[in-house]
């Protein structure tokens, strides 16, 4: 009781200050209210797709990120549609959209879209995926895949973010019932597109990066060492490609 009384007296002693702060915040609040705000129905992005109710069939998530994040879907005319909740099903190469209050998820009809930008759940960045970003890539098991654009320049880097079903299995409990399911694992593939249009697949390692340039491996290793270019994860691989573009601009005869 004493605590409540003390709080109330404190509030009243600071009342002018509180009122002032409230008045200062009033315009900001007013401006944040969009008079032409959309009503419930029109807030749905105009996307088409099948309504599905995904089942747990594997151990591990089939999604690139388990959390729903916001982002944009690029329709075929190039128009971007903002979506609040979506996630990328890396196992089936599908984009899933969720509308709060609606049953199930929507598996977006991928032939009606060009790509999407997915908000990274832990980083303040969008991951842009495009359908068939790289034409005719050897080693791709799907003919119509979403590929992530990591960097585009003279040398461009793309990634296929897939999940694969491993031969390993484990027992999980779903709805009180135990079942033996296969384990899912990441299956990422990186593709470097050279200025002459050739595509080379690689892993995010220094050796793999250097081996993508047969005939120049020794020189490239030496230059990379000189510039202290490390490649041990995909962010570093992207940086290495950016560095390579800058380096080639400075020394155009390097690969000749």
């Amino acid at each position, binding site marked *: 009781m004493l605590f409540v009384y003390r709080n109330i007296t404190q509030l009243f002693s600071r009342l002018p200050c509180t009122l002032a702060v409230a008045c200062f915040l009033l315009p900001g609040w007013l401006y944040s209210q969009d*008079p032409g705000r959309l009503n419930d129905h029109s807030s749905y992005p105009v996307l*088409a797709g099948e309504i599905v109710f995904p089942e747990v069939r594997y151990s591990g998530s089939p999604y690139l990120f388990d959390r729903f994040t916001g982002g944009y879907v690029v329709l075929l005319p190039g128009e971007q549609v903002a979506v609040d909740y979506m996630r990328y099903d890396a196992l089936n190469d599908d984009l899933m959209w969720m509308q709060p209050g609606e049953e199930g998820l*929507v598996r977006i009809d991928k032939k009606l879209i060009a790509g999407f930008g997915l908000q990274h759940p832990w980083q303040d960045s969008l991951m842009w995926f495009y359908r068939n970003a790289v034409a005719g890539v050897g080693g791709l098991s799907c003919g119509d895949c979403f590929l992530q654009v990591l960097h585009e320049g003279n040398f461009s880097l793309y990634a296929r973010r897939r999940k694969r079903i491993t031969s390993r299995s484990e027992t999980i409990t779903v709805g009180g019932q135990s079942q033996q399911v296969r384990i899912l694992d990441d299956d990422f593939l990186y593709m470097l597109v050279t200025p002459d249009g050739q595509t080379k697949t690689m892993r995010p390692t220094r050796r793999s990066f250097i081996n993508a340039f047969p005939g120049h491996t020794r020189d490239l290793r030496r230059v990379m060492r000189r510039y202290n270019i490390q490649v041990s994860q995909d962010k570093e691989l992207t940086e290495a490609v950016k560095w390579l573009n800058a380096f080639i601009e400075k020394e155009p005869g390097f690969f000749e």
Partner: protein
Amino acid sequence: MHNFLFHLRKRGLYAKSMCIGLLISLMLSGIYVSGMNQVHPVPDEQVILHTDRDAYVSGEELFFRVSLITQCDQHSSLVYIALRNTRNEIISGVIAPLNHKTSYGSIYLADTLSTGFYQLIAYTGEMRNYPADCFYTQTLFIANRFDTTLENLLELEEDPYDNQDQGGEPGTYATPEPILPDHTIIRISTDKEVYGRREPVQLTVGAEMPDGSTADMSVSVTAKHTIWPFLHEETDGGCDRDADRQWSGDDGVLVYPREKNGPVIAGKLISKSDEKNKLANVRVILSSPDTLTAIMYAHTNEQGHFYFTLDPTYFGRDLYLVPDHGTYAGEAPGIVVADPFAIHSSFEGHTGSISVELPPLVRESQDVVVVQKAFETLHGSFVSEKEHEHRFPPRLYSEPVSVVRPARYMPLDNFREIAREIMPSVRIRQQNEDWHIRLVNDQTAYTFFDSAPGVFLNSMPVGKLDVLMDFTSEHIRSVEVHNLPWRYGSMRFDGILSVFTHDHYDPATFLPEPFYALPPVIMHGKSTYVQPDYRTLGSEADRVPDFRQLLYWNPQQVINEEKELSTLFYTGDLEGTYAIIVRGILDTGAVFQAIHYFEVKL
């Protein structure tokens, strides 16, 4: 913070700072609240239109150039141009797409136009929120080619003695005055002052203007008597700031948005029994006959208004609006769609007198056009081919689950039989004269959906299934069965059944009631004036009369202090005085006009 407040108190500034802060805060709130209820006193956009001439004969083409003046980056992408007569009937309506805030083209003046004064009006969609005095207007004269009496013109002839009494010169009419902003000189020169028949004219247009300025202009070379300067004096001076605005926010009047990405179809749903009842959040579907299942939809706002920014797919096609009955309760609403060419002002024509010199000159023009129409011409408008644009109709699905083509099977007598025999995932039942269709859910492969699928005929929603049931195998080209629980934006379908027929069927026979049929929205193609080039034409061209009154028309030319226009055109077979009229806009928004004359003697 406490130290800061302490210092303020100590200096006696605490109360003062607080008061100033509160004042600013209240001012900002006030501005916001007033902004909610008021509109800009004048539109952010202004349109200026120039034509090749002022006087025409029916059967000729009117060439125009239209410019948008605005400081906004996100400006309108198109301009409406309407030609109306003194009975305020719209003779021709054109939607001109803007490119870098300008557009140009031509309007064919039909042979049936009666002799009289006409008004050309240009405005953007957003300007329709303001009174018509904010629109750009220009008065024109059009003579019917076969009207030999010219009664409508003769009744305006001035009495030469009246004019003499006022100190004026009888039987003359004024020539256009140059309009030049400060520090700007437009130089027009030709290589000679007098030319012969079909002789090349070397024209140069240069400018002296402040550093870095550019002039965007049109250049017209036409017979002097086709320029009637007194008609330009009638162009009113712009918006009446004190007039009542049509746009008033919450009073239910349709507010037209700025058409940044294409033409907008604006309309509203009204309750037939209670006009005050605002039908909010009702889905309105826009469809058009098509070979793909594609629709657009919009939801009404709190005022019951709806807006569609039209996708290029729908240009030039019949359009149909249908309110989705699943999104409103009670009686079917009425649909009102704003006519973009409805102009709420009146035009009375030229009310002043005209020079006695003009009627004989108009008759001369009529004769010239009659001759030109009788022979092959070496000039005219040329519509440039539109750039190939990829069109992506707003499709409901990319591929159906299955497609059935009845022609591949034994002929069947009706749609119910077709469904029963060759579409196993479709079930049709009849109860109390009503038809019911259900699809098998392809996700389960054995259960039917609880509710009816979305049924489309040639891409338009079907409200009357009876029409569909009469179709035999001969009528139907294909049936797309998309039996999946499907979402299209805010629409949810328990499967989609889309029927395509060989022949066109009148949508009025099957669309759900009520529906609204819209005329096609046609974007005006850019057309240029093609003049004969006697350097390349052979001797056969000598046998074709060249009675052009318009010798040259260039609707889009940019000049500055360093870059001038230097061009060549040919005179025709008509002698007389010709005027070179340069009209345009400086990049400061100031308009200018400059004139130069030359003679053609045969």
